Every structure is written in structure tokens, then in C-alpha cells.
């Protein structure tokens, strides 16, 4: 059930260059888990490249912390490095720690393991015990974790004070931002990698949630639970919370006042702190500290930074807008769509008459503040109106070459926004509204038809 990939930390679209690396490095044909298994079996393998396109596996004897190694973006490669070499925290007593800390807890530089001075000792570095350079190690399973002989003749050895992955990073609020390297649950079960679908099938695929840092098999909180958790490698236990300490004074993690809104909401409304307390259709909200009529886990004390006061609409879980549990038994949750969205339109500095076909000003920003694309340029959007055919299309100034009734517009420099209306207002009244009319019969093609189901034919 346990994947050999669990021993690795991955970096997608990344290549690890090294002077001893040759691009024709032997490439073996196998799947990524076989490659991980092979690397695990070889003591001198510290990382591997996986080339998904041709299922290629390249074993590497260095990591990003090795001298002269360099990470490079390369869409063809995924890089997997053994956790023991790249994590800056330890598991248990750090017996397998292979990191590069070389200073003791007291700030003294470590003595090289292959030196016998100032401290003489019995250890002989080899690839099995991992004694390398002057890095902190734990060859004798010391309960205090990795240590080293020091370069101070007065102090023979000292612990390096490397924290366990459990203690190394605390979490604030409900741990949505936790990015630590803990990979087991509070009952000690190893976590399932987020990029695998076994033993538990789940929706949290890292490419679907690029903002949730779903790295490897580390504890995370992609669904805004009370604290970080993970799917486990035990088929009988789907998921479990991780035991991570809460950082002190989480109240400081409240959004700064300038980001909070009260009469409208921005984005998904996670910083809305107003007092709307009904759903969009007027149903009163249930208090967050109540468990009736709906039971829930959004207890105000577990979500301090989300301000779950009274029965106010809030968005503690990254939903599409502020919401609440409703006071109606048959309706568990509902959005508070009646709260207005804060306008993100920028300040307008010019105006146009009629529909702006005659506008010849030099405003070159859209209502959302995106810079306009030059009419003569072909990227990011291929224009259908160019200065060749419409000579009054100057530079990237807002114009209305197609008589759009909503005013001057432009192609935008944002690849995701083909065109948008400009930061302009009508000079007198609003845009001339068209008269509605009952039109003559129209012919529709290839639309609006469906299989009508005749009830008399039903059984």
C-alpha cells in the first residue's frame, strides 16, 4: 500500500544540473514508482529525474544541496529527491537525517567526520552511516537527535538542536497556510501522497489546487478543516488530523483592517466582516456557535481568524462567496449573494458622448485597470480591428470601432481577458439605452430544440 515515492520530495518541471551530469545519463524505461524503488535500494542514489514523456528514469547521486548543483526549470523533467537529504527537520531521533546543518545548537562549527582533531573518535565515514563533511548526524541514535564533534577543543561534541518535523513549524488559524514537512498523522499513520489516488481516491489533486501547496505526502489543509490533515496509507483509515502545534497569538493573523470589508465583499469574501445575517433569499442564518438545526465543525474557537461571530455571513472555507448555515432544517447552507460585491472598477478620468464612437482621447486602461493592447499588435490577442482598416485606432487608446453600445473598449494585455470596456464614463447621462422592441418572426438554427417527452407514452 505504501508507495516508494513517499520517501521523496518532488519538484515538477525541474531539472537538477551538476558538473558531473551528462545529458546522455543512462535513462531507464520504467514507471515513476519503480524508479523510486530502484533509487531507494541504492545507497549512492540521492535523487532521480523522471521524464514522463518517455517514462525515463535517471538516477542521481546528488541533491540540490550538493556543491555545484543547480536547479533549472525544464518542463520535460520531474525531480524527486530523498527526503532525508532535503528536509530541514528530523523524524524521530534523526537517525536518517542527511541534511547539511554543520553548526551546533551553541553556534560552534562542526568538525569534519574524517578529521581526528581536535576530537579523536571512532567513526569512519562511509555511504551507509552517512557521515559526510562536517554535517550533523546521529550515528549512535542519540535521543537528542543529530550532533557533531565541535571545532572547539573545549567542547568535544554538542547536539545540533535540529527540530522534529512535528515541532519545526507551527500553524496559525486553521492551518490553511501550513507548509511544514510533517508526513504522518496524530496516531502515527504515514500520509498518502496528494498526487496518488491509492489507497484512498480523493479530489485533492495538486494540479487542480495549485494554491493549496499539496506537496508530496505532507500534512495540509486544502478543505479549510479545523487544522492540517492528510489521507493515510492505511486503507482502513481514510484521513486523520496531524499533530502540529498551534502558533501562539493567532489573533494577530486576522486580516489587516485595510483588507477587511463591511458593506460589500471582495474576491470570495473571505475578509468580509459585515453583519449581513440572512441568505440571498432572506432566510435567517444559524449562529456559528450553535449546533441546531445543523451540526457542523465551524466552531468559532477553531477558526479565530475567520471571525465567526453571531450568525453573520462569512466564508471560512474558501467557498464562492460569504455563506451561512440556515435556520431552516431542510436547507443546510446557502450563499449570501445579496451582499454587494465591492466595485473593483478604477477611477475614471475621462468621458465619452453617445456610445463613444467619436471618442479620440488617450485613456488606455480598462475598467478593471488592465492596460490596453496596442491596436497594431497581434499578441496576446489577435485583433479583428486594426489601424489599417480603422485609421483612428491609435496606439492603445480606447476606441469603439464596432459601435458597441456599451462604449469604448480595447483588447487587453491580459491573455485571459480578450477585450474589455474602458475606464471611461458617459459625459452626461448613462449610455443611451436601446428601446426594447417586439421583433418580427425570426428563424433560429440549430438551437432551442429538445426531445419533448410525452407523458402518455410513459409507462
Amino acid at each position, binding site marked *: 500500500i505504501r508507495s516508494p515515492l513517499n520517501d521523496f520530495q518532488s519538484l515538477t518541471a525541474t531539472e537538477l544540473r551538476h558538473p558531473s551530469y551528462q545529458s546522455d545519463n543512462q535513462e531507464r524505461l520504467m514507471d515513476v514508482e519503480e524508479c523510486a524503488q530502484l533509487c531507494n535500494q541504492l545507497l549512492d542514489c540521492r535523487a532521480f529525474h523522471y521524464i514522463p514523456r518517455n517514462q525515463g528514469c535517471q538516477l542521481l547521486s546528488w541533491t540540490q544541496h550538493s556543491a555545484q548543483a543547480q536547479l533549472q526549470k525544464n518542463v520535460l523533467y520531474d525531480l524527486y529527491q530523498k527526503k532525508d537529504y532535503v528536509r530541514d527537520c528530523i523524524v524521530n531521533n534523526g537517525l536518517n537525517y542527511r541534511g547539511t546543518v554543520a553548526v551546533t545548537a551553541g553556534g560552534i562549527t562542526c568538525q569534519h567526520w574524517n578529521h581526528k582533531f581536535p576530537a579523536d573518535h571512532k567513526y569512519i565515514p562511509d555511504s551507509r552511516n552517512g557521515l559526510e563533511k562536517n554535517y550533523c548526524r546521529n550515528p549512535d541514535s542519540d535521543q537528542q537527535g543529530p550532533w557533531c564533534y565541535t571545532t572547539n577543543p573545549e567542547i568535544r561534541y554538542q547536539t545540533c538542536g535540529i527540530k522534529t518535523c512535528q515541532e519545526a513549524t507551527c500553524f496559525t488559524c486553521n492551518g490553511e497556510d501550513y507548509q511544514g514537512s510533517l508526513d504522518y498523522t496524530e496516531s502515527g499513520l504515514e500520509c498518502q501522497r496528494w498526487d496518488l489516488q491509492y489507497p484512498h481516491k480523493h479530489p485533492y489533486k495538486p494540479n487542480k489546487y495549485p494554491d493549496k501547496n499539496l506537496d508530496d505526502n505532507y500534512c495540509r489543509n486544502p478543505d479549510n478543516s479545523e487544522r492540517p490533515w492528510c489521507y493515510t496509507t492505511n486503507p482502513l483509515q481514510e484521513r486523520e488530523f496531524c499533530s502540529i502545534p498551534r502558533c501562539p497569538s493567532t489573533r494577530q493573523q486576522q486580516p489587516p483592517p485595510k483588507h477587511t470589508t463591511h458593506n460589500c465583499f471582495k474576491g470570495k469574501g473571505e475578509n468580509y466582516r459585515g453583519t449581513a445575517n440572512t441568505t440571498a433569499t432572506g432566510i435567517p442564518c444559524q449562529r456559528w456557535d450553535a449546533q441546531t438545526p445543523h451540526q457542523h465543525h465551524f466552531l468559532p474557537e477553531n477558526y479565530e481568524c475567520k471571525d465567526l461571530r453571531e450568525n453573520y455571513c462569512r466564508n471560512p472555507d474558501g467557498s464562492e462567496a460569504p455563506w451561512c448555515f440556515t435556520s431552516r432544517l431542510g436547507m443546510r447552507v446557502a450563499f449570501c449573494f445579496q451582499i454587494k460585491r465591492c466595485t473593483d472598477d478604477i477611477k475614471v478620468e475621462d468621458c465619452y458622448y453617445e456610445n463613444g464612437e467619436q471618442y479620440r482621447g488617450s485613456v488606455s486602461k480598462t475598467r478593471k485597470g488592465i492596460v490596453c493592447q496596442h491596436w497594431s499588435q497581434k499578441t496576446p490577442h489577435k485583433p479583428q480591428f486594426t489601424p489599417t482598416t480603422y485609421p483612428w485606432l491609435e496606439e492603445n487608446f480606447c476606441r469603439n470601432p464596432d459601435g458597441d453600445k456599451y462604449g469604448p473598449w480595447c483588447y487587453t494585455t491580459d491573455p485571459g481577458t480578450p477585450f474589455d470596456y474602458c475606464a471611461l464614463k458617459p459625459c452626461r447621462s448613462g449610455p443611451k439605452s436601446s428601446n426594447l422592441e*417586439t421583433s418580427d418572426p425570426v428563424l433560429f438554427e440549430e438551437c432551442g430544440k429538445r426531445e419533448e417527452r410525452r407523458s402518455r407514452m410513459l409507462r
Partner: protein
Amino acid sequence: VVGGRPGNSPWTVSLRNRQGQHFCGGSLVKDQWVVSALQCFSSCRGPLTGYEAWLGTLFKDPQPSDPGLQKIPLIQMVCGPPGSQLVMIKLERPAVLNNRVALICLPPENYLVPGQTQCEIAGWGETNGTGNNTVLNVAQLRVIANEECNIKHRGKVKNNELCTMSPMVPVGACEGDHGGPLACFTHDCWVLEGIIIPNRVCARPGWPAIFLRVSMYVDWINKVIKLS
């Protein structure tokens, strides 16, 4: 949909968040374009990774084996003209049109739906106990003139909105139906005349429901399709 019945609306699209949960409706106006309500989205440029349109199913939680189900990722969102509350969403690939997935017609620009026209709303939203919450429900509503609507709504209804008559029993759109269609049968075809937007109360008897009037934005819709 309150006061509706399980029905067939092959242009009605279920918009799903990254957890696969339904959050709003939409209407398929072109094989790669859906029209919905701006309220359903956090911003005009919000990341859409993981968001999908589900088409071709009558069920709110269809099985993966549902024969007609098409799940298509959303790749682009274009916000409507100022004050429109409209949004267009581009699908990553064209939907396959068949007897479960079909396009709805767009009205002529500025077309005025005559009063008394029989129309229908469709959605997977709340039924408030009036029906089956797990399937697509459809309810019939009759259009009324804005002047008539404004008597009750005290002049609040604008030109770019349209109203339907309020039956004395609760019938209308509710939570989860927003963004979905008000489709009217005209010239032998179903035409998208309105978009469901939040009203203060679900299907309030005696109060006309307000929709976004699509005919005001048909040129814009066609321009988005043409320029994207």
C-alpha cells in the same frame, strides 16, 4: 426550483467548484460557451483551475457511469458590460451536442418578450420541500411587462431586467438556481430570455420574480464569442 417538477432542459449547465459541488446554473449558448450570473464568481479574472461545467445529466450528483454526463473544465471568464451582472464562461473544449446536451437560442438584440409569454426556469437548486432536491427541476412562469412588475416593486425594476408573474402558490427559483435559464418557447424554439439572479425571497407568492434580460446583451455575447 420551488414548485417545479423533474424535467428536461438540455441547455442547463451545472457549474461545479473544485470539490465537484454544484454552486450555480448556466445556459449553453454555443458549444464552448455558457452564460451565467456574475454573482456566482468571485472576480472577472479569478483562477478557474478545477472548476467544471457538467452537462447532459438530470441528477445533482450523477454517477460516473451516467451515460450522458459530460464534465468539461472552465478555462475563461468574461464579465458582462458595466452593470449587467452577466458573465460568459468558456469551456476547455466544445460540448458534444446530442439529445441530452443542446444549445439554447439567443433572442434578437433588444427583443421584448411579450407579456403572458409562457416560459420555464430550470435548476438543481433548493425545492424548499416542494420536490426532489436530487434532480433537475423545471417550473413554468409567465412573463409580465416591466410596468406591471414595477407596481409591486416600486419602480425598482430596470430596463435590463424582466419579470415573471407570481402565482399565489410558491413557484420560482431558489438557492442554487442562480445563473440558470429563463427559457421561453418562441417560433418553435426555446430562447434564453432571462438569467436567474438572486431575489430577496425564494418564490414569494404575490411578488413577481426578477430576471436579467438577455436580449439587452446579445450583441455583447456574440462579440465575446467572436473576439475570444
